[in-house]
């Protein structure tokens, strides 16, 4: 049971909430309270737009426990428009091929059950191909 950890990380996981450095405006994700760019303290919350592009990806066939029901699935390193790289599952791929540089957008989805089907449902960010306006 990891309920306290899920609870602590909920803002960051549901809404892609990171930090922005008040000194150099560097955008930080995941939040770490210290700016990796200038080294000063950075605790100002910042909600990312959720827009980005696929930097690299791989498909998981042998999934770890808790994720096996979703296998095979694709995990990508996404370069957010604001700068940071984030590792996340891709979703809603349909029959669409994945390409490096493909524009993606953040959605909040079910990640897994904590434990089995009796456990709390863990929600968090994933990315899907950007829906092109009709």
């Amino acid at each position, binding site marked *: 049971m990891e309920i306290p950890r899920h609870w602590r990380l909920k803002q960051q996981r*549901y*809404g892609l909430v990171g930090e922005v450095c008040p000194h150099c405006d560097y955008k930080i994700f995941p939040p770490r309270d210290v700016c990796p760019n200038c080294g000063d303290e950075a605790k100002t919350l910042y909600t990312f737009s959720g827009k980005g592009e696929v930097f690299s990806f791989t498909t998981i066939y042998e999934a770890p426990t808790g994720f096996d029901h979703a296998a095979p699935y694709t995990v990508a390193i996404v370069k957010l428009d604001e700068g940071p790289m984030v590792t996340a599952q891709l979703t*809603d791929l349909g029959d*669409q091929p994945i390409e490096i540089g493909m524009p993606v957008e953040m959605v909040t*989805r*079910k990640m897994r059950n904590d434990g089995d089907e009796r456990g*709390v449902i863990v929600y968090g960010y994933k990315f899907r191909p950007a829906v092109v*306006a*009709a």
Partner: protein
Amino acid sequence: MPNTLLTPNRPVGIVGYGSYVPRYRIAAREIARVWAGSKGGLPVKEKAVPGLDEDVITMSIEAARNAMLRAQIEPAQLRAVWVGSESHPYAVKPTSTVVAEAIGAVPHIQAGDWEFACKAGTEAMVAAMGFVGSGMADYALAIGMDTAQGKPGDALEYTAAAGGAAFIIGPAENALATLNASYSYVTDTPDFWRREYQKYPEHGVRFTGEPAYFQHITSSSKTLMAELGTTAKDYQWAVFHQPNTKFPQRAAQMLGFTPEQIAPGLLVPVIGNTYSGASIIGLTAILDIAKPGDRILLASFGSGAGSDAFDITVTDKITLRAGLARKTQEYIARRTEIDYATYARYRDKITMK
């Protein structure tokens, strides 16, 4: 008869709206292939199916984010997050608190899950009209969303679909459409139900039409129009709960509406019956194309049974706000067809242990 219309003390309206339809579709003829051969007519062309990682919480979050984009308000201005559904992911633990947290609306809010078969979403909208209309709150979010399941092979499996809509109700002066009045018609009618611990619902087959759907939806609409002194001709558009293609077409005809008036809101042929979302996602598709001054009649239906009817007038704020978030037809156009086997996996119909 006393005045039975519900009208708020302070004028209210829809400040923002948003919809969501998942990507996957299964054709009704594919379901028929598995269970019925090719005999008989089909109630819809295809229906929307949620992905493995989607449920009423994730779908409500996306519709709510779209509504927030159009409303152009801060999440902290919301004083209520209410989600109506018959497929809440938990038996005990609110859908609404997760949705509220995800859009940044916590902690100064009312939150709660509503249930009334397919009219849980409009019930939340009526409550939001009262909450804002009394002056207790400036903004309230009401959502109707479902991931409906039909028993494999049952008539409902052809239509039970996933999708819905979110509405931010606020003061009329900031609304893209005013909610002028509503009226609800409710009786105890056992047309459709699901007992606790049962995965699939039961229904009264022939009992679902005349005494349930048609009686309630035409009574709510007729009374609303009679008390307002309007007729079908006074409305540009109308949208009714749509469990299949024929029911809303016939209800519209009985009430004097033309096929053109219900066309933009009649989404059931291409997304299926989204239960708590069905009438209100139709409303979002209408708002997507509406012009200032357009008057809209909305009537939901929930088994058990009841219907909420609303009189709505689009304002000039629609021009700017409709384009601020993804339109309902854009979600419908995002479409990947799946076969019955994939559908059975996505809908958890295959028992693994």
